[in-house]
């Protein structure tokens, strides 16, 4: 959805098409960032008071003192299950409590015993359990080093940048008690309260994560510019390749080298800046050369937050997958969406009325293009009053929704968190009378300007407010809603058109806490409450689907995220890859970008390429700005309609694989769309690749994102791997850069040798229509002539999988026998789907193929063999997809 009307004017006046950077703060314009950044590396004024150390079974506590001002801090150190160390630093005796982020961790993380290895006047050494991992607490100056054997994995405060602005009684200090930005004053009633800490990562040259930024996958050093900023903002027409803050913030960074992956989770919801520097910049390398030194590469990171405490989780890997599981153990995994949400979504600001919806729906059938969801943006409401419908344009929403039900399709309607101040609006009246609005600094209801005009903002940080909000999605509350209506939360940074940086004043109050403390959590809570509403309305039976623009650590638990208001430009298509990859690394797998680009109108070529790319990204939705010409897939001539149809159909054939990936992500927290280095962590050639990606382990996608491309060069990883072109079945060796000539119909996708991927080739109007359809198994053999994969089946939309109502089968091919074995014997589900075809890539010709089913019956299976491509096709083996079977090639 769009951004600020007022800013339209600003852009108009400036006459340029890009973000108006002047609307957003630089580090220099953010008083605490400027103050903190002015501190240079050096000896830390902090000293650990070892005599205050207390070690219990679960934690170590220790006081720190700042020798400059004698203010004492309390350090807490925990060893958490799963190779995680938690370091918490707060004031020992703050004037009033400092904010600690609630609700993001899925539970109080279970601890493991810490033991003291040694202690002297210089510090203590604690064991982190097995693997010879230790924490060394140095006393003077204070620092922490996490070691494994002789290697330092990570050091804290080694550059002396620990800073903790203690709460104090007011006195005048420039920028510390009051500051202003443009015409907005921030009263800063608590004065300075920033926290900062540095982390050194020896041996690390590649760091990732800390979304959301429109930047490369590999994070850049920030020495020559602003730090990466984490502050949820509605940025109008955002610019690419810079560290400016965007709609969401996940304060998690991954560090990787060929030996190890580690992670830092900085649990703080206030405005945060992250500086990255490295000794392997050009200067560092040159120095190495000149001095002939063998200095190890090192990346230094520094986190600065405006308020709250230091609460950091150090995830020690050592593998990328360990990191994902460690992070998931803290904040949870990707929610398991209804299968249909993985299909294609058709959106536009706006489908004008019911007739328009009906015509677009019919257009998809007329042009034989599948889709599952049609979306309604803000214009569907009665005057931007969410939970209502425009009485003229959407006079009978249930009729419209019923029309979609009959096609087995669904709808999403937008519900934003800004509430029109209007005494005739039920939602507003209730929120006001319950006192649920966020308050301004003077205690009145905070009012800002947004789509409906003057609007209030419910305080989603309150559990009672969220419960009430969730109850508003009940069918008898949300008039015109039905089971097939789902929800989209936009503008939940929150966007306040007339607020500082288009968001809320930091001195607005959420109960006792300032907005400053909770800002980055707001969108997280909005989506949480909305998803809860969708669950409750079905009595806890149906899985919700909620899309959000703003997010925080943990948002993966509540639905999908998109990359906000992008533009119809080739660079925006390209950036969709690193943006979603970065989100995936920090747990948010259900990511997509507006296909076609939101602002401006795409060329036909760009639109087609975007469909081809989007078809292979987790959240696949086309969207367009109100002011752009219509761009439903059939409006660009039969040739392009066919290209788009083909891309969407490819998505639908792969839905069984996507669904299985989401099931896995839900179990493990592993990203679905993942960078190559996650699967090939020892291959440095993969470390900076962000123009191609993997879906799960087994599909490698290098979409065409260049205008007028004649070919792309894809890196196929793994020196022992084989990769099969999924369209031609051509076999390629791994560990090579492969040039692939492309035409407008090309979407370079490769299946890894050694994998088995289930597809449904009977593409129908919607994913629900395909529920009972048979599977085709694509078995791609590796050089050892083996392969394995999984097949996951459930009802596609309820929580019954939690009650073990699903099928999970392991498919493996070894010694010329392909078999299906039950991986979840305690689960029960039956399916009508069967196996209609098995395609074995890299096979040799058998003389006979025999199918054996559970009952012991044997039958011959017909087959065809394409010798030129070594493709063996087994014709209609016909067994049910949920039972044991084996197929033997002789």
């Amino acid at each position, binding site marked *: 959805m769009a951004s600020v009307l007022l800013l*339209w004017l600003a852009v*108009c006046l400036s006459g340029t098409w890009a973000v108006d950077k002047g609307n957003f703060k630089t580090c220099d314009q953010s008083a605490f960032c400027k103050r903190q950044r002015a501190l240079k590396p050096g000896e830390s004024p902090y000293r650990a008071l070892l005599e205050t150390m207390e070690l219990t079974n679960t934690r170590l506590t220790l006081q720190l003192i700042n020798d400059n001002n004698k203010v004492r801090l309390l350090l807490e150190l925990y060893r958490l299950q799963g190779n995680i160390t938690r370091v918490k630093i707060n004031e020992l005796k703050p004037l009033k409590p400092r904010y600690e982020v609630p609700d993001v961790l899925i539970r109080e993380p279970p601890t493991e015993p810490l033991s003291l290895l040694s202690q002297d006047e210089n510090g203590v050494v604690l064991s982190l359990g097995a693997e010879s991992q230790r924490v060394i607490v140095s006393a003077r100056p204070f620092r922490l080093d996490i070691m494994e054997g002789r290697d330092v994995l990570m050091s804290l405060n080694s550059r002396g940048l620990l800073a903790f602005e203690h709460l104090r009684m007011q006195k005048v200090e420039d920028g510390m008690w009051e500051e202003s930005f443009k015409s907005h004053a921030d009263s800063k009633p608590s004065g300075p309260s920033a926290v900062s800490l540095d982390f050194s990562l020896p041996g690390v040259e590649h760091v990732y994560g800390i979304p959301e930024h429109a930047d490369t996958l590999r994070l850049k050093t920030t020495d020559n510019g602003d730090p990466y900023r984490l502050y949820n903002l509605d940025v109008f027409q955002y610019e690419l390749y810079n560290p400016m803050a965007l709609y969401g913030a996940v304060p998690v960074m991954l560090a990787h080298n060929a030996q190890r992956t580690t992670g830092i989770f900085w649990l703080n919801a206030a405005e945060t800046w992250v500086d990255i520097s490295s000794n392997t910049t050009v200067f560092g390398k040159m120095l190495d050369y000149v001095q002939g030194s063998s200095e190890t590469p090192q990346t230094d990171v520094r986190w600065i937050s405006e308020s709250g405490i230091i609460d950091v989780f150090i995830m020690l890997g050592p593998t990328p997958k360990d990191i994902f599981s460690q992070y998931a153990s803290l904040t949870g995994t990707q929610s398991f969406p209804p299968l249909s949400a993985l299909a294609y979504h058709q959106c536009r600001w706006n489908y*004008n009325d019911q007739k*328009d919806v009906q015509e677009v729906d019919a257009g998809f059938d007329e042009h*034989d293009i599948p889709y599952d969801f049609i979306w309604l943006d803000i214009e569907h409401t009665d005057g931007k009053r969410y939970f209502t419908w425009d009485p*003229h344009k959407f006079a009978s929403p249930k009729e419209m929704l019923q029309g979609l039900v*009959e*096609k*087995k399709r669904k709808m999403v309607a937008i519900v934003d968190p800004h509430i029109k101040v209007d005494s005739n609006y039920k939602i507003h009246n209730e929120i006001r009378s319950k006192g649920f609005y966020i308050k301004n600094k003077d205690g009145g209801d905070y009012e800002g300007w947004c789509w409906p005009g003057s609007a209030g903002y419910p305080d989603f940080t309150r559990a009672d407010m969220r419960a009430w909000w969730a109850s508003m999605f009940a069918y008898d509350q949300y008039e015109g809603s039905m089971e097939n209506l789902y929800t989209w939360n936009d503008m939940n940074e929150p966007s306040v058109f007339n607020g500082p940086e288009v968001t809320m004043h930091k001195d607005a109050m959420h109960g006792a806490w300032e907005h400053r403390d909770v800002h980055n959590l707001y969108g997280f809570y909005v989506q949480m409450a909305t998803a809860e509403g969708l669950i409750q309305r079905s009595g806890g039976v149906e899985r919700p689907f909620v899309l959000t623009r703003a997010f925080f650590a943990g948002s993966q638990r509540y639905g999908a995220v998109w990359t906000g208001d992008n533009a119809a430009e080739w660079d925006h298509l390209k950036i969709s890859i690193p943006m979603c990859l970065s989100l995936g690394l920090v747990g948010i797998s259900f990511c997509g970008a507006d296909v076609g680009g939101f602002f401006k109108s795409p060329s036909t070529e760009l639109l087609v390429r975007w469909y081809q790319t989007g078809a292979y990204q987790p959240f696949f939705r086309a969207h367009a700005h*109100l*002011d*752009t*010409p*219509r761009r439903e897939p059939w409006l660009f001539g039969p040739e392009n309609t066919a290209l788009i149809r083909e891309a969407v*159909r490819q998505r639908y054939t792969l839905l069984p694989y996507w669904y299985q990936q989401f099931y896995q992500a839900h179990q493990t927290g592993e990203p679905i769309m993942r960078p190559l280095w996650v699967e090939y962590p020892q291959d440095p050639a993969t470390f900076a690749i962000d123009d191609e990606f993997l879906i799960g382990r087994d599909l490698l996608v290098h979409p065409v994102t260049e205008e007028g491309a004649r070919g792309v060069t894809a890196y196929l990883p793994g020196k022992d791997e084989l990769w099969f072109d999924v369209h031609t079945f051509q076999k390629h060796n791994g560990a090579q850069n492969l040039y692939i000539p492309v035409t407008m119909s090309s979407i370079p996708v490769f299946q890894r040798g050694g994998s088995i991927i289930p597809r449904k*080739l*009977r*593409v*129908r*109007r919607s994913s629900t*229509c*395909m529920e009972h*359809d048979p599977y085709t198994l694509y078995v791609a053999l590796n050089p050892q002539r083996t392969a394995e994969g999984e097949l996951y089946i459930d009802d596609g939309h309820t929580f019954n999988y939690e009650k073990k109502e699903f099928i999970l089968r392991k498919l493996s091919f070894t010694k010329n026998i392909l078999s299906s074995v039950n991986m979840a014997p305690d689960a029960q589900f039956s399916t009508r789907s*069967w196996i*209609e*075809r098995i395609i074995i890539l890299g096979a040799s010709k058998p003389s006979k193929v025999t199918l054996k*089913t559970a009952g012991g019956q044997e039958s011959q299976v017909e087959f065809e063999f394409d010798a030129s491509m070594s493709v063996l096709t087994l*014709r*209609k083996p*016909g*067994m*049910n997809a949920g039972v044991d079977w084996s197929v033997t090639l002789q």
Partner: protein
Amino acid sequence: SWQFLLILFVFLKKAVMALTRFFCSSLQERQFYEEGKPFTCLDGSRTIPFDRVNDDYCDCEDGSDEPGTAACPNGSFHCTNAGFRPAFIPSSRINDGICDCCDTTDEYNSGAACQNTCRELGSKEREIMKEMAEIAKEGFLLKQQLIQEAKSGLEEKKAKLAEVQVSKKDLEDKLEALRTVKETAEQPEKEAKERHLKAWEDEKAAIRLEKDKAKMAEVFLELDDDADGFVSVADLLTHSELDPDSDGSFTEAEAQGLLGGVDKVDTAAFESVWNNIKEKYVSESNADIPAPVETPQEETREPVPENDSEQYPEEDIPEEEEDDDEEDEDEDPDDGDYKVSPVRISIRFMKDDHEFLFNLDLHFVCRNLEKEISFDFGPGAEFAYLYGQCYELSTSEYIYRLCPFNRVSQKPKYGGSETNLGSWGKWTGPEDNVYSLMKYEHGTGCWQGPNRSTTVKLTCGKETVVLSTSEPSRCEYLMEFTTPAVCQEPQSLYPDAHDHTEL
């Protein structure tokens, strides 16, 4: 009966169901599915045993072996729909739980509770068709009338044009007198004079062009003896004066050459032909007199000699034309009728600076006539009656106004200024139905967007009405408009109705 039913037993191995299934292939294809004999895919790519036809596995690349199942991604399924229209649907819609065929045959194994609605739909459709046929019939009659009226109207207008041109002489005298009056009233400013001179030159060129176009249209109609909308080689051959080498023998090849190498040209393509033949062409109506060569200098439409143009301050140059048109419309919606004193001269004196303003209606009458004659009002000029008319539609917020061949506009109901949604552009229907869509373009610009434009979709109706307006895309409007002028001769629109009620 023509019905052909093929009975098949579809056995699904391992599946609990062994299902018996009727399926119908279309009349044209039934011959290929002969029970018991090997089946060759319709694309000839391979031959398979007959038991693989409709066995729920796709063997043929063209999908032809599975006309009754969803197995082939590119297959299609034939619904007989007895009582209604037969139809093909993509085979992906077989057994998907959604009733597509009104005879329910597409959902033979999905458990969907489909009702056979063919009879209902059939009778409903026949009713609608009947209604539409009646409308079309009446509309078509009206259209014939319109064509007649347009024909006589055109002649009348041509006559009027001639008349108006004659009366210019008279006008010139009057102007001469006026000039004297004005000269004594004020010395014109030099700058204004030069500006005006230029404008006047441009206008003359435009007039010449329009005149030429009008002439061209006239000639086209003359040449198009069989009134099929095309000028053909045969049509040209009747004009021996057009013989390019004037050797006394005007051959077909030469005529084809003049037509740019094709056998016939439509009005659009005729434009280039016209440039080749206009010097030589002799009108059929006065074939004995050589056609006057187009020399604008000879035209006497110009109200004043060039050297007198200084007398006309720039306010009277044709920028005002549109406004004047509107005024005309407002005052006299029937402005197709020029019988009311076409020559009207108004002279105004500005109060303060005694600037001499001058508005010459005759000029516009002349131009309007020419402009009108030059419009493409359809093959039989059946759309001519729309010219100069306006049709309104009132919605909850706006009044939409369509003035065919002129402009489309939108005015807020409760105050606010009018927005131009586009001026007449062109016919934009598909090749086989060019006169089904009108495009109005270059309306008021949109913020960060295109200029507003409107597509008018014409459908057959007895009345001339704007049915609806919408804005499917920002600043791109769609208007539905009914008129008898697009009615087609109602040739048996539902001829099979009786056949289809059988079974």
